[in-house]
């Protein structure tokens, strides 16, 4: 391919990425070093916003909450996703039906899915979950105001909305495992448990890695789900990092754009560090191809 053709082919994409993403990003970085308000030029304050964010106990709680949720939900997602994918891989004719049903929660906007999900728990909406729990002899649970039940409900919702995607990725991987390898293990007398642990899981390592990567990336940014599920997020310590930025930098009242931007920058750094192994792999592959 000639140099000029290459440039012409990538130009629209480069222009869009530069104009609509790099320039806003530059502004966020600039804001993070300023005392600033929307529509007004800011004044340079150095690292004050970063110090402010890092010493804010609310931000610390938000980081803890987000990281804890990410780790827990990712682990559950991968294990459940693997089990469901394995079972779906066994069934034949009704597979499209089952996949279609399972995909609904993934296809729906997260905020809408989370609203429907919250209505199962909401006593203003009949409280069907508490109804089941109390009729089985359990206690009445305050899903929206008690920190830990609220966390559990959020985690369940994240798993509910992301399980279809994790399951699909793993299913795609399972279909790439050659039948002969599994049969060979069977003939060698490996039990079903050992077959999964020593044959199937190692051969879909890459796919599992990808599923973990996507889950981590998406749960670290969790925001939409918390709007219906955690209306009390700030007071019970269930604010995510994104929700913290929103509350700091956008919500009416005390808009603190500088601190919000500083947290955005810190989050980008965190994500870059976590993505580093993948970035290096992609870079090498694309350069050498």
């Amino acid at each position, binding site marked *: 391919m000639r140099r000029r053709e290459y440039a012409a*082919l*990538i130009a629209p994409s480069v222009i869009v990425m530069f104009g609509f993403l790099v320039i806003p990003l530059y502004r966020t970085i600039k804001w993070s070093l300023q005392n600033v308000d929307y529509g007004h030029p800011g004044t340079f304050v150095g690292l004050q916003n970063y110090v402010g964010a890092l010493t804010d106990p609310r931000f610390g709680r938000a980081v803890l909450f987000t990281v804890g949720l990410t780790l827990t939900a990712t682990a559950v997602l991968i294990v459940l996703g693997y089990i469901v994918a394995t079972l779906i891989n066994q*069934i034949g004719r009704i597979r499209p039906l089952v996949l279609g049903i399972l995909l609904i929660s993934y296809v729906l906007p997260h905020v809408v899915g989370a609203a429907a999900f919250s209505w199962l728990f909401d006593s203003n909406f009949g409280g069907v979950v508490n109804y089941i729990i109390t009729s089985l002899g359990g206690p009445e649970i305050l899903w929206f105001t008690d920190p830990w039940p609220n966390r559990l409900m959020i985690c369940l919702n994240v798993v*509910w909305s992301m*399980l279809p995607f994790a399951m699909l990725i793993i299913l*795609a991987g399972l279909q790439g495992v050659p039948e002969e390898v599994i049969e060979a293990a069977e003939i060698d007398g490996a039990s079903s448990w050992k077959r999964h642990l020593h044959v199937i899981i190692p051969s879909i390592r*890459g796919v599992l890695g*990808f599923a973990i990567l996507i889950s981590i990336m998406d749960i670290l940014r969790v925001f939409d789900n918390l709007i219906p599920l955690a209306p009390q997020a700030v007071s019970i310590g269930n604010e995510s990092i994104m929700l913290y930025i929103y509350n700091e930098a956008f919500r009416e009242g005390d808009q603190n754009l500088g601190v919000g931007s500083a947290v955005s920058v810190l989050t980008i750094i965190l994500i870059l560090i976590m993505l580093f192994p993948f970035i290096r792999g992609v870079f090498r592959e694309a350069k050498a191809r």
Partner: protein
Amino acid sequence: MTIVNVEDASATAAPVPELKAAEPGRRRKSHTFWVLTGLFLAATCFIMLSPFIWTIMSVTKPTNVAFVDPPVFLYQPTLTAFVDLWQTTEFYRYLGNTIVVAVISTIVALAIGLPAAYALSRVPGWISAVLLVLALVFRALPRFAVVLPMYEITKSLGIYDTTYALALALIAINQPFSIWLLRNFFAEIPPTLDEAAMIDGCSRFQVLRRVMIPLMGPGILTAGIFVFLFAFQEYLTALILTDVNAKTVPVFIATQLGQTLPMLQQAGAAAVLLTIPVIGIAFIAQKYLVAGLNAGAVKG
């Protein structure tokens, strides 16, 4: 090029037809295994659907029993909430906005992403590598880092709260990922095909238009479904960049949440109306989503 989907994945693994390849494996399993698998999958489907079932029940109840605790399971169904939604809110306009934004941003993101993905799949080197890494990083970016500056920029340009500003923002946000998806499909088309077409007198751009795009049908469809879904689902960007005029359904439903009980029921009705077409999308999409994932998006 082969796009593998769930149904014929085993067929491509072995030249034997699918059913025969699977039969020996199936006969080995016991009867109990199948009963347990069926029960587990049925339970999973039920749990995954339960929020929708409950929502449908809540919005078809008369308002006076819809919110009572303990919940009512038997009632005279009514469609009042839907009628109210249609008459007292501008739901149809929000739905229109959502669809317009999703369709426009999908078409433009693909039109921009296609040539770039083609170039990236054919030319190695550091520029391609940097672009691809950027596409990955932008996919993972915390939205506020770009959306809050966009808020200020749209306000100062006077295009705040317009559908095209929102569409532009979503094009920018989703376009990098379309490159990522499309590149994997291009990579499956052998470059010798390009060369053959060019020997026959095609220019590079003609190769892309006349040879590649027709071959890329399933790939474009898969990437299109993903990008459409992302745009259709977007809440955060629409929340920040719209106010009254360009409001989308997810934002509308979220603003109804803290309001009065009839409004809550209308939000439920809106969620149901949004879910119905989405079920259609889910059933059409499942084949292509798996195809997209199989075609190398998850090579690792």
